[in-house]
């Protein structure tokens, strides 16, 4: 049947300004006839007292009265409207009503019609009720359309202004309620499948009732019907009287309708699906069927139908029970987990029962470890400083070298010789070797020198033994005679002179020979060196060993020694610095460890970070001697967060609410403090969903939560679990996963993996590409479960 918007007019009709209405004139509204529930009588049905119970009974009676009145009113209208103008729904209803009451001959007798209406409603079962409700529904639809009735969300009044919009009391699906309850039934009244929204609403109505033309009511039969009911086009519905009747009529329809919903459990869409006035024989169902329709056919239940119904009941209850048991199982598991985690936290936090001396001894031990570790850290500092230092030592060495060059020039000795001497300085007796050479040469030259000396002595003597008489022929002229007298030496004299000359010549010749050998000819004996004479060689050797001796023994050459020493020292320092660089590198390499998370040798950056972190951890551990160590404290903080999800209902519920939004496609916004800037967004969203936005903010006013969330993110095994589960849910292929290496061994400490350390691993993997929407409920549930198992030592 086409659901044409027909009108079920009210028992009262709006005023057109005239007097009491006649049969052919739309009647005036009269309060006494109105079967509506005045607003003042609607009370919330929350407390059952004698008074409220009475009101409830009254309202149910009023609902019944509304239905009876609807039937009588419509039968009246049916009589008034010309046959050709009667709307179909009205015709059908009256036809049905007449068939169910074949003895009802006079439809104009209102009293009899009312009596029959009561029987019709009580005995006609669900179909009768629904047929009558449809009359109400179509009336409401036409009033809604002609009066432009709207449900408007109530806005808060502007500051300082008084909210003058009228309040409306709404009826909820579960009974009578106040305005703040679900107003959705208004939408349900006129539309299907609408969504109710809680809040305050107003019922707005137009200034005039409109039909025809461009209005919502254009069907001629609907218009004819409305006119007969008194709702004509152009009727002023601003007046308190007309407006009041209109609103109250809609209210009473809504109230009656809500009773139907509440009592039958039917949904609004069921109404239009179930309504069918015209069965094949226009018969109602016989007694024995439920008045709340189940879509049954005419007649009673068969035994098979009873059996089927019994089975259906059993199946429903069975499934409900299984669901409840599953819920209990899940809840129990959750509770057990919470208890297990609490116990584990207690174990980790147990005091170690140490007396003061033990604590001191332990702290001293840790202090020593810190010192040793700082030395390791110092290697990295050195490595950074050494190149600069090496450059400085090289510069100093160069400077001293130039000074040495200068000194070499000053003393006329080749630089290489000075360096030799400087090398010799390491062997204080080295000059003696050169002296030995000198001495050997002296010895070799000694015979010649001795001979020369002797010959020179002999020569001196012979020269002293020059014959007295000259061995010359003297030619004189006697003065007296003028005679030339030639006196010739005597033979003995000449012989003496001859012997003397020969000897002196011989000696002088020999001396010359020796001198030539010693001082002129290139020496060919020991230590010969090119064209150098023996004397030269001897002199050079003497000079050499003397200088060396002086340099070594710092006698006469302090400047040279100083220059050599300075250079030598600078050179040694520079060489040492070069060696230091190699040594530091070797030591650093020697201290490198296998990264437990990747399974391969750590890089230098990772190594340095690890060592420095270990120092901090040791310093922290030193402070915590007697209590939980730094790694245990981190695990305690992390587990405390997870345990609260299991143990505290309000924390769990808050998480559930965030997950609902996440699942619904409206993930909670992700905001976080700079301390977390390099974490993958999906990882931070997991924290956000589990613990809320305050966990990621250092300034949100919950420092304890923030500290614990940071601990969780810095726990190497737990952050790994978070990433693993997100990757698994998003089917990240093996090549795109974060390479974490071997799994945790039971009892292994949850050492710190800081943000930089994690970033070094996640940088080129797919976790960085996943978004906050990629973290779903299953991720979170798995994260909680796997963290718990990890903490408890389960695989």
């Amino acid at each position, binding site marked *: 049947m086409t659901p044409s918007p027909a009108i079920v007019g009210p028992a009262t009709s709006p005023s057109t300004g005239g007097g009491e209405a006649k049969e052919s004139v739309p009647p005036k509204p009269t309060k006494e006839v109105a079967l509506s529930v005045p607003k003042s009588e609607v009370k919330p049905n929350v407390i059952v007292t004698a008074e409220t119970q009475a009101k409830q009974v009254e309202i149910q009676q009023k609902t019944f009265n509304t239905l009876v009145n609807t039937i009588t009113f419509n039968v009246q209208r049916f009589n008034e409207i010309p046959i050709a103008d009667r709307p179909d729904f009205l015709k059908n209803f009256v036809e049905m009503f007449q068939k169910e009451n074949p003895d009802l001959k006079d439809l104009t007798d209102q009293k009899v019609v009312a009596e029959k209406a009561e029987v019709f409603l009580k005995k006609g079962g669900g*179909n009768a009720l629904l047929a009558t409700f449809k009359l109400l529904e179509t009336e409401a639809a036409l009033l809604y359309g002609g009066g432009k009735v709207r449900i408007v969300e109530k806005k808060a009044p502007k500051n300082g202004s008084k909210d003058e919009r009228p309040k409306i009391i709404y009826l909820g699906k579960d009974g009578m309620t106040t305005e703040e309850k679900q107003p959705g039934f208004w939408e349900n009244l006129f539309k299907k499948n609408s969504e109710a929204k809680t809040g305050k609403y107003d019922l707005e109505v137009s200034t005039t009732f409109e039909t025809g033309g461009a209005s919502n009511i254009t069907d001629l039969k609907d218009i004819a019907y409305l006119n007969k009911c008194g709702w004509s086009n152009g009727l002023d519905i601003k007046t308190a009287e007309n407006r009041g009747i209109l609103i109250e009529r809609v209210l009473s329809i809504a109230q009656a309708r809500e009773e139907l919903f509440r009592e039958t459990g039917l949904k609004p869409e069921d109404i239009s*699906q*179930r309504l*069918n006035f015209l*069965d*094949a*024989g226009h*018969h109602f*169902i*016989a*007694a*024995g069927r*439920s008045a709340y*329709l189940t*879509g*049954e*056919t*005419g*007649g*009673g*239940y*068969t*035994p*098979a139908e*009873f*059996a089927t*119904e*019994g089975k259906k*009941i*059993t*199946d429903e*209850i*069975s499934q*409900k*029970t*299984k669901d*409840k*048991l599953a819920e*209990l*199982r899940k809840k*129990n598991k959750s509770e057990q987990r919470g208890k297990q985690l609490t116990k584990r936290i207690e174990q980790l936090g147990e005091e170690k029962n140490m007396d003061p001396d033990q604590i001191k001894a332990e702290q001293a031990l840790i202090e020593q470890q810190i010192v040793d570790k700082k030395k390791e850290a110092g290697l990295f500092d050195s490595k950074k400083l050494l190149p600069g230092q090496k450059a400085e030592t090289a510069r100093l060495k160069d400077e001293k070298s130039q000074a040495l060059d200068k000194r070499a020039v000053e003393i006329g000795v080749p630089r290489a010789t000075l360096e030799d001497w400087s090398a010799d300085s390491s062997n204080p007796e080295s000059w003696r070797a050169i002296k030995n050479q000198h001495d050997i040469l002296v010895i070799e030259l000694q015979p010649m020198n001795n001979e020369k000396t002797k010959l020179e002595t002999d020569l001196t003597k012979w020269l002293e033994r020059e014959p007295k008489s000259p061995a010359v022929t003297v030619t004189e002229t006697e003065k007296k005679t003028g005679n030339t007298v030639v006196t010739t030496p005597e033979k003995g004299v000449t012989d003496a002179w001859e012997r003397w000359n020969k000897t002196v010549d011989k000696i002088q010749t020999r001396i010359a020979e020796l001198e030539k050998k010693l001082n002129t000819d290139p020496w060919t004996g020991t230590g010969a060196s090119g064209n150098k004479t023996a004397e030269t060689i001897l002199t050079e050797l003497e000079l050499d060993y003397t200088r060396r001796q002086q340099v070594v023994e710092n006698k006469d050459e302090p400047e040279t020694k100083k220059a050599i020493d300075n250079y030598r020292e600078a050179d040694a320092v520079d060489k040492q610095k070069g060696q230091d660089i190699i040594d530091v590198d070797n030591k650093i390499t020697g201290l490198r460890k296998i990264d437990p998370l990747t399974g391969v040798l750590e890089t230098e950056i990772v190594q340095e970070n690890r060592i420095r972190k270990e120092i901090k951890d040791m310093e922290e551990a030193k402070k915590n001697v007697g209590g939980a160590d730094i790694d245990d404290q981190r695990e305690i903080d992390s587990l405390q967060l997870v345990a609260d999800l299991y143990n505290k209902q309000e924390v769990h519920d808050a998480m559930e609410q965030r997950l609902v939004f996440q699942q619904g496609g409206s993930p909670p916004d992700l905001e976080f403090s700079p301390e977390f800037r390099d974490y993958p967004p999906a990882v931070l969203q997991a924290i956000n969903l589990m613990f809320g936005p305050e966990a990621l903010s250092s300034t949100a006013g919950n420092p304890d939560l923030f500290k614990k969330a940071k601990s969780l993110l810095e726990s190497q095994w737990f952050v790994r679990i978070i990433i693993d589960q997100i990757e698994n849910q998003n089917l990240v292929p093996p090549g795109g996963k974060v390479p974490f290496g071997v799994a945790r061994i039971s009892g292994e400490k949850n050492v710190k993996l800081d943000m930089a350390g994690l970033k070094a691993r996640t940088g080129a993997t797919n976790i960085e590409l996943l978004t906050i929407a990629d973290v779903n409920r299953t991720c979170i549930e798995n994260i909680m479960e796997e963290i718990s198992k990890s903490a408890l030592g389960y695989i």
Partner: protein
Amino acid sequence: MKKLTIFDIAKILKFSADETNNLKKDFENADGELKVEIMDTMWSAFFELHKKLSDLKYKQLMQEVGEGKRNLTTDLYLQAKKLAMKDIEDILSGTPQEVSQMDELRNKIKNLIPTPQNSTALN
């Protein structure tokens, strides 16, 4: 009526073997509070089932009264409850419900033969 256990109730509610085993495991491993909750769940289900089956039986009896097959007495609902309990006991003992099965067969045969009554559908 014999004294029922929650495992009897599981049988009445047609739990599968796995579901019954799970129930046993959960119950054995449960602490006192959980045991109470499990028992409460099962017994609530039992009482709800009994009530609804009793209501259904009552309708059936009332229909029989309407058809003249039974006298209307003041203890009709009590009778319904007893019948419902018997059905439950039959399920527990595994007694096949032959009567309803035969009725079902008869109705199937009957439905194969069209009659005017069978075509009056209201929806």
